[in-house]
């Protein structure tokens, strides 16, 4: 057990830190206020900058344009990005999930055609997984693809498609064989979002933003060479990649939580409660200390999980608790922020009295999505119950 960074890790960190210091765009704070589209163009430019300096897709093998970074280097990467206040990269799904899927299952032609443009943010990707009737029970999805000569004809609807409105390409999971058990008849297709019959509608969420889209497919023709992996083995292609996602970006999320925590403590020193700084109120102190401790434990759980992967090559059982831990923690944290800010917590940035330009009211609402997106807390608990503790399946 040694939680200090090795000399090699320190070297990597220092190199990255120096680059970020010189390169993180200072105008990000203002751009944040712009429209979603303008923001996205900005983020594409930022990713391009990272790409040109060799910092996009660092986990990818060198032969595909990555750095072949070690797990710890990936952890450090996300920590430093967050620490530097760097904007996110535009092609987050392409870099984290779709690129690795193509690397693992794609043909040489597919790799040549797609990978570089994922890294450079020239082509933005989305994932067509969830459907109105297939959420947690993803394998029951109904969007169908029928073979017609050299093409599949796709019909159906996807929902909760992150960046659907911005995407050039979609990793789409479709049913190619309705006559076999539900996991067996699925196939992964790469679909050009400009193909006739693709209809993208923004989905407005409770925060008022439109991060997600609904995507409708009506007689959309997809060439057979756009199948990833084998026909009817799409479950392994789509889910296999998700299961290998090691969640190193979570290390960056933890840094962001830590920064939010520091900010909240700072606010508590300056806001007044019962005639004294809120930071001196015993109840406020209890709540802040609880959150502070949990954010630290989030870091420790992550480091144990990453160390396990490093040592054994596979995610250990600690990994399965991370999603529940960060999502539920953020909800508790946002509620405590609301309690501390009192009536000011509800204000949006549009009001001059708002604290921190209204990020706290946004954060409170956005946190409700945390326990739903990327596998609900209920599904996460099922996974722990069945796969970690060995309890019988409940469904």
């Amino acid at each position, binding site marked *: 057990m040694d939680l200090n*960074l090795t000399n090699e890790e320190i070297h990597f960190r220092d190199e990255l830190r120096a680059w970020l210091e010189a390169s993180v765009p200072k105008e990000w704070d203002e751009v944040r206020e712009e429209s979603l589209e303008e923001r996205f163009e900005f983020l594409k430019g930022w990713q391009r900058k990272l790409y040109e300096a060799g910092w996009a897709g660092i986990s990818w093998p060198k032969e595909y344009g990555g750095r072949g970074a070690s797990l710890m280097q990936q952890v450090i990467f996300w920590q430093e990005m967050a620490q530097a206040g760097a904007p996110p990269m535009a092609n987050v799904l392409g870099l984290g999930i779709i690129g690795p899927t193509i690397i693992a299952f794609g043909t040489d032609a597919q790799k040549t055609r797609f990978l570089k443009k994922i890294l450079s943010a020239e082509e933005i990707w989305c994932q067509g997984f969830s459907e109105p009737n297939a959420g947690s029970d993803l394998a029951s999805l109904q969007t169908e693809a029928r073979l017609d000569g050299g093409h599949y004809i796709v019909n159906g609807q996807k929902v909760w498609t992150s960046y659907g409105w911005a995407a050039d390409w979609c990793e789409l999971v479709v049913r190619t064989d309705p006559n076999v058990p539900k996991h067996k008849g699925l196939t992964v297709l790469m679909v050009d979002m400009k193909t006739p019959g693709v209809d993208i509608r923004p989905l407005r969420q409770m925060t008022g933003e439109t991060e997600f889209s609904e995507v409708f497919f009506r007689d959309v023709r997809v060439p057979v060479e756009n199948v990833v992996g084998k026909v009817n083995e799409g479950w392994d292609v789509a889910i296999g990649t998700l299961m290998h996602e090691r969640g190193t970006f979570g290390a960056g999320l933890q840094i962001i939580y830590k920064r939010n925590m520091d900010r909240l403590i700072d606010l508590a020193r300056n806001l007044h409660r019962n005639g004294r700084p809120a930071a001196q109120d015993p109840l406020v102190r*209890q709540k802040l200390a*609880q959150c502070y401790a949990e954010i630290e434990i989030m870091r*420790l759980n992550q480091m144990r999980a990453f160390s396990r992967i490093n040592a054994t090559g596979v995610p250990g059982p*600690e990994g399965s*608790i991370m999603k529940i831990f960060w999502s539920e923690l953020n909800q508790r944290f946002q509620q405590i922020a609301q309690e501390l800010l009192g009536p000011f917590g509800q204000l949006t940035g549009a009001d001059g009295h708002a604290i921190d330009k209204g990020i706290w009211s946004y954060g409170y609402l956005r946190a409700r999505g945390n326990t739903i997106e990327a596998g609900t807390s209920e599904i996460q*608990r099922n996974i722990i119950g069945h796969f*970690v503790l060995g309890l019988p399946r409940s469904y």
Partner: protein
Amino acid sequence: MQFGLSESQQMLRDNARKFFAGECPIAQVRRLLETVTAHDDALWASMTDQGFTGIIFPEDYGGVGLGKVELILLMEEAGRALLPGPLFSTVALAGAVIDVVAAPAQKKKYLEPICRGAARATVAIPEASGSWDPADVQLSVANGKLTGEKLFVPDAAIADSILVVAREGVFAVDSKAPGISIKPMPGMDQTRKLYSVRFASTPGEKVGESSGLGKALDVATAALAAEMVGGMQRTLEITVEYAKTRKQFGKPIGSFQAVQHQCADMYLETESARSAAYYAAWALEENTPDAAVAVSIAKMYASDASRTVGNRGIQIHGGMGFTWENDLHLYYRRAKASETAFGDATFHRERIARLVIDAGAVSAQSA
């Protein structure tokens, strides 16, 4: 960076687990808790042979010279076995206090016998206020004589010496000294006996200043948190096993999500408490700037989690969980006693607030 156990650490943990399974199975625990002191000489001698009594102490005094992480692993296994008796009070508490505050001659006198299994010791801190904060101590010493009362002193009746925290420093008192009276304080947990100890002009030998006490108590507190993790782990194992075998409506109850999700939460709480305890041990060993915060985080989390894990485990067992025959209540009792010892979650949250909010962020994360 590697936040995992080394090979030798894994070996130590596996050996300790095997040792406790053989020498102190639950039947032995049940036998000992019915005794007056919950102490067994033969078991103590075996533990001494294993090097447990000298695990973290310098080889100069007959110790094994291992680190805090090794101590934490041993205590975790002791907690998993619900080990009765004075291993915690003698080694992780009294031994740590002497090791930190005493001068070499006194270490020779008090630590060496502990290492070779010839003596047991304990530490007396709380008084009528029930506080483990040395700053709240009232007992004072005049002309080398102690007068006053200490409460919640673990294993005092089988300790050869009692280290008393007084306003003037830390004093070693012979448990047979004149004017001392030791009375049981029967509590929920009968595996670790608590006592009130009254002193009336009792002679004591000063072994160190109270100023060094914080570090020693942090070692004891982290060790206790690790012991609690072991208790949680065992409670989880017993409960999952029951959920797999107990059938209702024709199915194992573990196939119902209402039960499964409680088990998942027990797992989350146990693993999180373990992460915090391991880190606290490492931070103490390395003397990192955030070591005290890390210890408070570990004890705070373990204090709440060990109770919650126990609650869930008993609930999942249904009526069986409420019986004397089932072992869960033994762990549950220990969990409650440990929850309050060395400060409960509320105590440690306030300590975190003092260290982080008042003193400015002390963080390992400046990396």
